């Protein structure tokens, strides 16, 4: 049986993050907690971020969802850990460009595992799965700014 089409979407790295999610769990009290759901499909995530002196010192998530949304959350927490908040937001913008199939900045960031999600851009119905955790982070920093 051929899985060619599917392999484009479900790359091995993605399946690895799905199977062995990094940073799944909860941070101690005082962390920034953001709940986000995808109302069209029922996926939910709670992202927890610890920010010290403008830097994301730790990131974890809990939630329910499909392989793409959970793998993306795993990759996302992995990649923003240690970044300055504005750098993390920039990375989120790059990820958004990648999902929309646009040219994206590959020079200034080490995209690492995230790049494996590039194939999602060819499955429009699944883009929102991949961006859920990133949107949660953006929402968290926006609300913190407004507070």
């Amino acid at each position: 049986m051929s899985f060619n089409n599917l392999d484009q979407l479900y790359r091995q790295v993605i399946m690895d993050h799905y199977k062995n999610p990094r940073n799944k769990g909860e941070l101690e009290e005082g962390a920034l907690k953001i709940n986000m759901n995808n109302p069209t499909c029922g996926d939910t995530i709670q992202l927890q971020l610890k920010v010290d002196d403008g830097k994301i010192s730790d990131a974890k998530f809990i939630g329910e969802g499909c392989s793409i949304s959970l793998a993306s959350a795993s990759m996302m927490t992995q990649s923003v850990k240690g970044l300055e908040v504005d750098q993390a937001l920039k990375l989120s913008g790059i990820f958004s460009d990648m999902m929309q199939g646009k040219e994206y900045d590959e020079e200034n960031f080490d995209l690492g595992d995230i790049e494996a999600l590039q194939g999602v851009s060819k499955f429009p119905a699944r883009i929102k799965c991949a961006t859920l955790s990133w949107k949660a982070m953006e929402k968290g920093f926006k609300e913190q700014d407004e507070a």
Partner: protein
Amino acid sequence: MMNVQDIRKQFPILHQEVNGKPLVYLDSAATSQKPTQVIDAVERYYKEINSNVHRGVHTLGTHATDAYEGAREKVREFIHASSTEEVIFTRGTTTALNMVASSYGRANLQEGDEVVITAMEHHSNIIPWQQVVKATGATLKYIPLQPDGTIALEDVENTVTANTKIVSVMQVSNVLGTINPIKEIAAIAHQNGAVMVVDGAQSTPHMNIDVQDLDCDFFAFSGHKMCGPTGIGVLYGKKKLLENMEPFEFGGEMIDFVGLYDSTWKELPWKFEGGTPIIAGAVGLGTAIDFLNEIGMDNIQQHETHLAKYAMQQLSTIEGVSIYGPEKRAGVVTFNSDEVHPHDVATVLDTEGIAVRAGHHCAQPLMKWLEVSATARASFYLYNTEEDVDTFVAGLRKAKEFFGNVF
């Protein structure tokens, strides 16, 4: 018996490849496909008789009015209403239910009153009631479900009280496929002095409907799920109730006399049809009804019941697949696979040209009751075949195999 291959020929959209595979459309509970007759009828309306209704002295205006009112008569006959005065064209089921909640609910509910619905309702039969009880101080109550996703009349009797003013229940569940005993529930509602509202979105396309036999007070359904165009639906209401209700929208079309500070309304059903109505949509729905009548609703229901049964048999041969809802059901099979998330199931099936729905199916409270965040659903209509089911089941096996390799 109906000839499914002949029926399929009349649905042009089915004869295409999706992702390099012949399309297998198993999402008719979301929206049905349209036969050539309906597509042609809408086109002919715009090409030959398009005009506004109920006002033109000119010939086209008369033709358009005849076509629009002719469609109303077809709907009346189809649902066995006693008069076209009881047939109101709306945008769909959602609008129809909102009309009842707003026009009837707000005027007839007060603090201490109850609205009773069930735990399996679609959002469009939950939220309008949430809103109207908030506005009136009434209470919203739920009839619980049996473990197999059916409703026990005993639970209806225990939930509906003398304080209940409105009972609103779906006739067929869009998730579980449950066929609810509307006639019996309506009798209990009436014994307690409540009106009976029926969400017929998932029943009207698939079975004979007789609103007088059901003895419901309001009945709502959508055209697009029964081979008609999107944007047209129907609210049936008993004349006596409709006469005492205020219009839902105010403006052109629905008036009798307009003064500077006061106005009066047209007769039924037009007082509920403010603005230029959905003329082409009604014409398309009328043609869809002709099409369905020609095949016969009993034949359609029998065919779908068979497909659902066959699909459940086939699915039960796959390890780790759970099916939600009762044995006896309409043509809806909602399921989950223990290894593969429903979105992933839907994506894998899509790469095989198979269209199914994945998610919460606009029934979040029901998902909570099922203790799942999402499910996948295959739904059948008159144009589906056993081969469609076989392709679907093979696709699901493929999804299991693909994800099984991961774990």
